[in-house]
């Protein structure tokens, strides 16, 4: 029986199956003997390993024999037949196929071989030309690399020079930052000015307060005068009302008298027509009565014409301090308004000055902080330059 890969694998499977069954039987028969079980397992594992190695080696030998047979079959079909007999039938079709593909005569060069050689030479020439161009390009790149290295060396030297130049600046900055925060020289005059302005503002505030007191007193006097004038106006209105009432009564009396005179005049005219009456006496009485009625009517007409105006007109308010007091009060009010405006202007200027001073202090603090952080930045720059120089070197 010839050895084949299928048979080898089947043998390996059967041995492994036997090994597993033996292990199960041992574990079932004597479960309390782990040493025996371990020994059996180890022995079985070793045997399987040896068997696997053997089978692999034998498979490799079969492959070598197949290759030998293929070579013999490709060279001489009879020799291939002899080698085929030493192999398993599994490999026979492969060997027979190799023997069948063997050409009948000796291999002759192809008719277009010269052409192929010419093309190959041309390609070789092209490749050599490209290789020369590539070498020229490489030389150019080498020159550029040398130039870049020279520039990098120059830059490195410049960086080192800059770092050396920064050293005194760092020392100066360290000195500056270590100093206390002195008030800038420009602040002092402004502080003096602000103090002077503050004193002036205080003085003006006191003056304004004094004027405000005077204005308040003037306002009180004005209010008192107005109250007095109002009281006089009320008295005058009351008097006017009384007069109007009396005028109304008088008007009523005039009307009554006029009506009475007219009736009397009518009666006299009736009596004058009576026979036996002294006509002259009646004529004189009628004339007197007509004069009286005429006076009453004129009086009534004058009263009617003048009454509406006096009734609707407002009573004149007497002025307690005519002209002089009003002018003085107006001057006081104008002066107080001007002083108040000047005080407000000064206060606004002081506020703006204080705000500008605060902004200047804030800017100075910010600059000092920036100066304090500048050495650190310079240190970072220096380290970065050094790192760059090291990388370049």
């Amino acid at each position, binding site marked *: 029986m010839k050895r084949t890969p299928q048979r080898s694998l089947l043998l390996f499977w059967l041995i492994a199956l036997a090994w597993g069954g033996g292990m199960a039987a041992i574990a079932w028969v004597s479960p309390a003997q782990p040493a025996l079980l371990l020994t059996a397992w180890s022995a079985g594992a070793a045997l399987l390993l040896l068997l696997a190695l053997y089978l692999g080696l034998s498979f490799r030998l079969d492959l070598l024999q197949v290759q030998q047979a293929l070579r013999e079959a490709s060279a001489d079909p009879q020799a291939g037949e002899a080698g085929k007999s030493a192999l398993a039938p599994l490999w026979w079709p492969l060997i027979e196929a190799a023997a069948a593909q063997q050409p009948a005569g000796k291999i002759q060069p192809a008719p277009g071989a010269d052409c192929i050689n010419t093309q190959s030479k041309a390609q070789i020439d092209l490749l050599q030309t490209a290789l020369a161009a590539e070498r020229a390009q490489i030389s150019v790149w080498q020159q550029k690399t040398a130039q870049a290295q020279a520039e990098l060396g120059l830059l490195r030297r410049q960086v080192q020079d800059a770092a050396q130049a920064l050293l005194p600046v760092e020392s100066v900055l360290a000195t500056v930052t270590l100093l206390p925060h002195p008030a800038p020289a420009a602040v002092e005059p402004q502080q003096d000015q602000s103090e002077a302005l503050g004193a002036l503002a205080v003085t003006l505030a006191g003056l304004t307060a004094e004027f405000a007191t005077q204005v308040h007193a003037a306002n009180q006097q004005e209010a008192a005068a107005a109250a007095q004038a109002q009281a006089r106006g009320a008295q005058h209105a009351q008097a006017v009302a009384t007069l109007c009432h009396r005028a109304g009564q008088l008007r009523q009396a005039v009307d009554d008298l006029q009506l009475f005179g007219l009736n009397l005049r009518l009666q006299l005219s009736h009596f004058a027509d009576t026979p036996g009456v002294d006509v002259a006496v009646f004529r004189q009485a*009628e004339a007197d009565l007509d*004069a009286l*009625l005429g006076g009453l*009517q004129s009086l009534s007409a004058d009263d009617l014409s003048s009454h509406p105006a006096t009734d609707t007109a407002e009573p004149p308010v007497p002025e307690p301090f005519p002209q002089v007091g009003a002018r003085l009060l107006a001057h006081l009010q104008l002066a107080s308004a001007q002083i108040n405006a000047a005080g407000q202007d000064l206060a606004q200027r002081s506020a703006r000055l204080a705000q500008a001073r605060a902004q200047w202090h804030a800017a100075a603090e910010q600059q000092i902080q920036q100066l304090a952080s500048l050495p650190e930045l310079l240190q970072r720059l220096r380290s970065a330059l050094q790192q760059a120089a090291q990388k370049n070197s």
Partner: protein
Amino acid sequence: MKGVSSWLQFRLGDQTHALDATAVRQILRAPRLMPLPLTSARAQIPGLMAWQGRPLPVIDLGACLLRRSSLAGADARFLVWTQAQQAGVLVVDGVGALLRLSATTLTRHWAPTQPGLPPPWNAIRGVLHAGETADIAPTGFNCSLSTPIAVFDVAALWMACWDRLHPADGEGVR
């Protein structure tokens, strides 16, 4: 005083008229009135007024002539008139001067009306006007004949107003 005529001026609205002064007996201001049960003519006849023991009917002349009451005015006056057996009271807006004109003067300032006017304007007997010369002047009053004055016959005016208010039963009231 023969040959002298007297007229009492009265006012209705913005017009001045006149009545024969001999017929006017008294001028009153706001007397007490007794309303009449005449609801339809209450505006024209406000009521009755007692005068010297006689009940006299009162006619609002403003309501009769101008279609608006004279009683509402503050200067309303009540003119008591008597003529023959007739008597009554006329309410006017106001009373003016008493005109006295002689016969010779009256001929220059008197213009009689022509018949044919509708009632109550047919009660106008004539018109007093200034004429060519301004020699007319009321006695005692500051007024003149700057505008013509219609002179009414008081009895005719009374009857015209009464007939206008009650044309059917006017005879019974008279």
